[in-house]
C-alpha cells in the first residue's frame, strides 16, 4: 500500500505583528497510507492546523512555507501553481472546518452549497450532483435526506451542519479528507452521532484522512495512527493503541495523565448534611425577554431549580449548551434578577440584584468566567486588575497592596514579575490564573466557576484543577463548578447536578455518576463522554429514541 500523503521536512514561517519572523513548523515528516486516518494532536499553537492546511497548499495570512514538500498522490502541493492547486482542492483533497456554522453561507440553501464543488470543477451535471448529495446525506445518517438540502443553514442543528459540511467535502470524491477539529464545538451527545457518521463514511469509501484535534479520546475512536505535536515539531508517532496504552515521549505521557484526573475522595454525605449550607437555592426561575402577565419572562432559561451547597464542598453543574447552567451562575451572583424563587447565602436571603446586596455579601461570593481573554481588561496590567478588589473590598492601598498582589500571584503559582504585564502578554493558562487570583483577592467564601477550564488545553486545564483543589484545602473555599466536561467535574466536585433545558434533572454524589445515574438524560450525557479507549465508540450502545429527542431540539 503506497502513501497517498507524504510530508517531507516541512517548515512554515510566520511574521509576527512586530515584523519578526518565527518558525512555527520546524521540519515535520508525516505520511498517510491509502485508507488510513492519521490524527494530529497537540495543544493550541502546536501547529496542527497549519500542517493540515498545507495539504491543501494553503497557509494562513502571514504564514509561508519555507521549505519541504507536501506530496498528495505524488504531486507536490508546495511547488504547484495556484491554478493547479485550485484544481486539486475539492477534488483530491477536501477540508471539513471546525465551525460549520461559520463555514456555511446563511443566504443560500444547503443543497446549493453542497453541490457547489461539482459545479466549480464541472464534475457532473447538476441533477447528478443533487442525487449524489442526497446519497451522501443518507450515508451520513442525516434526518430527511431528501429534503434537508432545501433548508437554510440556520434551520438545522449544529451537529447536522457539521455532517453537511462533510457532505460538501465528499461530493468531489476526494482521496484525502482533512478534518479540522470538526467536533470540538459540539455537545458531547451530538459529537457521538457526528463521529459515528464520519467513521462509517471513511470506512465505506476507504479514504485517507488527516484528523486534527486536541481531544485524545475523540481521536482514539477514529484514527489509525496518532502524531503528537508540540511547538511545531513531531514528538511521537505511533499506532493509536500504542499511544493510548504505552506512550513513550514525556509530553505524550503528560497528555495521557491529564486525561485521567485523580478521582476525588468523596465527602462523607452525613458529614455534608451536618455542615451548614453556604448556598441554598430554592425554586429558582429566571429568563430573558419582556415579562408576561404571569410575572414570568417570555423565555425561561431556568425553571424551578433547587439545590444546596455545603460549606467547604464543591458542587458541579453539568449540562449541554442551552441547559441554563450559565444563567444559574448569573442569577446567583445577582447579574440577572430571578423571576421567582430565592437564593440564600450563609443563612440570609440575598437581594435579587447586585445593587441590593451589601458589599460584604458581594465580597464573599465571586464569579470566574470561562474566557480569560474577555474577562480581563486588556488595557490594565495584572497589578491593577488584582489590586482593584483589594482596594474595593479591603481598603488596601500603596505598598501593602503591592505586597498583597505578590502574595496572590504566588497563591496561583505565578511569578511576581508578571504583575507589570498586560493580559495580552500572558499565555492562556496564565490568564486563567490571574482571573482566579482576582476572585481570590476578595477573600471569598464561595467561587462560582463558569466553565473555567473549557477553553484551555488538556495539560493546562489539569494544572488549573489541581490548583483549585489545593486552594480549597488551604482556604476552605466552596466552589460551584459549571462545566459541560464531565471529567473536570469528576476531578473537583463532591456532588453533581445535571441540568437539561433549564431544569435540574438529577443530583448525585460524583462517585456515583458513572454507575448510579437514574434519569435517562443523565445516563445519556454521562455515557456520551468519550473514553480513552479505541473501541469505546463501537461498543457504545445508547437509547436511540432519547438520542434523537436530544439531538432534534
Amino acid at each position, binding site marked *: 500500500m503506497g502513501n497517498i500523503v507524504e510530508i517531507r521536512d516541512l517548515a512554515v514561517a510566520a511574521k509576527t505583528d512586530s515584523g519578526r519572523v518565527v518558525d512555527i513548523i520546524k521540519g515535520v515528516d508525516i505520511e498517510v497510507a491509502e485508507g488510513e486516518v492519521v490524527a494530529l494532536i497537540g495543544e493550541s499553537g502546536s501547529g496542527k492546523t497549519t500542517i493540515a492546511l498545507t495539504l491543501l497548499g494553503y497557509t494562513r495570512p502571514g504564514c509561508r512555507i519555507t521549505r519541504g514538500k507536501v506530496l498528495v498522490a505524488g504531486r507536490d502541493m508546495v511547488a504547484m501553481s495556484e491554478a493547479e492547486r485550485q484544481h486539486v482542492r475539492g477534488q483530491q483533497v477536501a477540508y471539513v472546518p471546525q465551525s460549520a456554522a461559520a463555514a456555511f453561507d446563511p443566504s443560500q440553501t444547503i443543497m446549493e452549497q453542497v453541490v457547489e464543488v461539482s459545479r466549480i470543477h464541472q464534475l457532473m451535471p447538476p441533477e447528478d450532483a443533487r442525487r449524489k448529495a442526497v446519497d451522501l446525506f443518507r450515508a451520513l445518517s442525516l434526518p430527511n435526506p431528501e429534503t434537508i438540502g432545501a433548508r437554510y443553514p440556520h434551520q438545522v442543528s449544529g451537529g447536522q451542519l457539521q455532517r453537511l459540511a462533510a457532505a460538501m467535502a465528499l461530493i468531489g470524491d476526494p482521496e484525502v479528507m482533512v478534518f479540522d477539529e470538526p467536533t470540538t464545538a459540539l455537545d458531547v451527545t451530538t459529537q457521538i452521532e457526528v463521529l459515528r457518521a464520519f467513521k462509517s463514511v471513511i470506512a465505506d469509501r476507504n479514504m485517507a484522512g488527516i484528523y486534527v484535534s486536541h481531544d485524545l479520546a475523540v481521536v482514539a475512536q477514529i484514527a489509525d495512527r496518532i502524531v503528537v505535536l508540540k511547538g511545531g515539531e513531531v514528538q511521537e508517532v505511533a499506532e493509536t493503541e500504542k499511544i493510548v496504552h504505552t506512550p513513550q515521549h514525556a509530553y505524550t505521557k503528560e497528555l495521557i495523565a491529564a486525561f485521567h484526573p485523580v478521582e476525588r475522595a468523596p465527602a462523607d454525605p452525613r458529614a455534608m448534611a451536618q455542615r451548614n449550607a453556604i448556598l441554598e437555592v430554592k425554586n429558582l426561575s429566571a429568563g430573558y425577554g419582556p415579562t408576561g402577565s404571569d410575572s414570568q419572562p417570555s423565555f425561561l432559561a431556568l425553571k424551578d431549580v433547587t439545590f444546596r451547597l455545603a460549606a467547604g464542598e464543591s458542587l458541579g453543574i453539568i449540562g449541554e449548551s442551552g441547559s441554563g447552567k450559565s444563567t444559574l451562575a448569573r442569577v446567583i451572583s445577582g447579574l440577572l434578577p430571578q423571576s421567582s424563587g430565592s437564593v440564600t447565602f450563609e443563612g440570609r436571603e440575598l437581594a435579587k440584584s447586585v445593587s441590593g446586596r451589601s458589599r460584604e455579601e458581594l465580597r464573599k461570593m465571586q464569579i470566574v*468566567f470561562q*474566557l480569560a481573554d474577555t*474577562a*480581563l481588561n486588556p488595557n490594565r496590567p495584572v497589578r491593577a486588575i488584582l489590586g*482593584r478588589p483589594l482596594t474595593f473590598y479591603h481598603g488596601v492601598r500603596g505598598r501593602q497592596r503591592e505586597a498583597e498582589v505578590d502574595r496572590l500571584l504566588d497563591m496561583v503559582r505565578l511569578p511576581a514579575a508578571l504583575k*507589570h504585564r498586560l493580559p495580552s502578554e500572558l499565555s492562556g493558562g496564565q490568564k486563567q490564573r490571574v482571573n482566579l487570583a482576582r476572585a481570590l483577592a476578595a477573600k471569598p467564601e464561595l467561587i462560582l466557576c463558569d466553565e473555567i477550564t473549557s477553553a484551555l488545553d488538556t495539560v493546562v486545564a489539569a494544572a488549573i484543577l489541581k490548583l483549585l483543589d489545593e486552594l480549597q484545602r488551604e482556604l476552605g473555599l466552596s466552589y460551584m463548578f459549571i462545566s459541560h466536561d464531565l471529567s473536570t467535574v469528576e476531578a473537583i466536585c463532591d456532588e453533581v447536578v445535571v441540568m437539561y433545558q433549564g431544569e435540574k434533572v438529577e443530583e448525585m454524589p460524583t462517585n456515583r455518576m458513572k454507575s448510579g445515574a437514574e434519569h435517562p438524560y443523565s445516563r445519556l450525557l454521562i455515557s456520551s463522554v468519550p473514553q480513552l479507549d479505541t473501541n469505546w465508540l463501537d461498543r457504545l450502545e445508547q437509547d436511540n429514541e432519547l438520542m434523537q429527542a436530544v439531538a432534534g431540539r
Partner: protein
Amino acid sequence: MKALAASARRRTGFHINTVGTIGAAIVLFWIVIAICAPLLVPYPVGKIVDFDFFGPMSQKFWLGTDYLGRDILSRILMGARYTVGIAFAAVSLACFVGVALGMIAAVVGGFFDTALSRFLDALNAIPSLMFGLVVVAGVGSSIPVLIMTLALIYAPGSYRFARSLAANTNTMDFVTVARARGEGTVYIIREEILPNIIGPVLADFGLRFVFIVLLLSGLSFLGLGVQPPNADWGGLVRENLAGLPYGAPAVIFPSIAIASLTISVNMLIDNLPTRIRDRSA
C-alpha cells in the same frame, strides 16, 4: 547610538514614532502662532496696505495681498487664533459631552438610553448650517455662541459613535465582573470602558476637528462666523475665491494652512505617544 536612544526613551517613559512627531510639531507650531499672533503680524489685519488686489508674493508682502489689498500673512497669522481656538474649543466640548453621555447611556441603558438617543437623533436631523443660521440670528454672533453652536451640532455624532463602542465593551466579561463586584457606574465608565474605546474616540476627535474647521468657514462665509475685518482661515479662502483663476497666493496659502493643521492633527492622533512598559521590571 541605539543604546543611547533606548536610554533616552526609558527616561521619558514614552515612545512616539516619526509621523506622530511631525504631526505634533506642526500642531504645536500653529498653537504658538495663535498665541503670539499679535506680536508677529507685520501689518494690522484690517488695513488696506497695497493698491493692487490679489498681489503676488513680494519682499514687502511675503504671501501677497487679498481682494482688497490687505496683507495675507497678517491675516493668516491672526486667523490662526480663530480657527485653532474656536475649532479646538468646539471639538473638545462636542467630544467631551458626546463621549461622556454615550458611555453613560451604554452602561445605564434602559429608558435613559432610549430617551437620550432619540433626542440626539432628532437634533442630528437638523441641517447644521440652518441650525447655525437660526442660533446666530436669534442670539447674535460672538465667539462663545459660535463655539457652543458648533459643539451642539457635532455632539450627537460623537455621542452615537461613543455609545456604540461602549455598548460593545459593556458586554465583555470584565465589565460583568466589575458589576458583580459591586462597582459603581462612574468606576465602570472611567476604568473599564473608557480605556478600551479611547483609540477610536480620539480618531473620531481628529475627523470631527476637520469638519468643524469646514463648517466654521461655511458660517463665516454667510457672515455668521468670525466678524470682519477679522477672518478665520476658511473665511479667507471663501473671500479670496475669486483669485483662484489668477493663482493668487491669497487663496492658496490659507488652504495650505487649513490642510497642514487638519492633516497634522490626524497624524498626531493616529500616532499618539505610547508608554514604554518595561516588562522585565
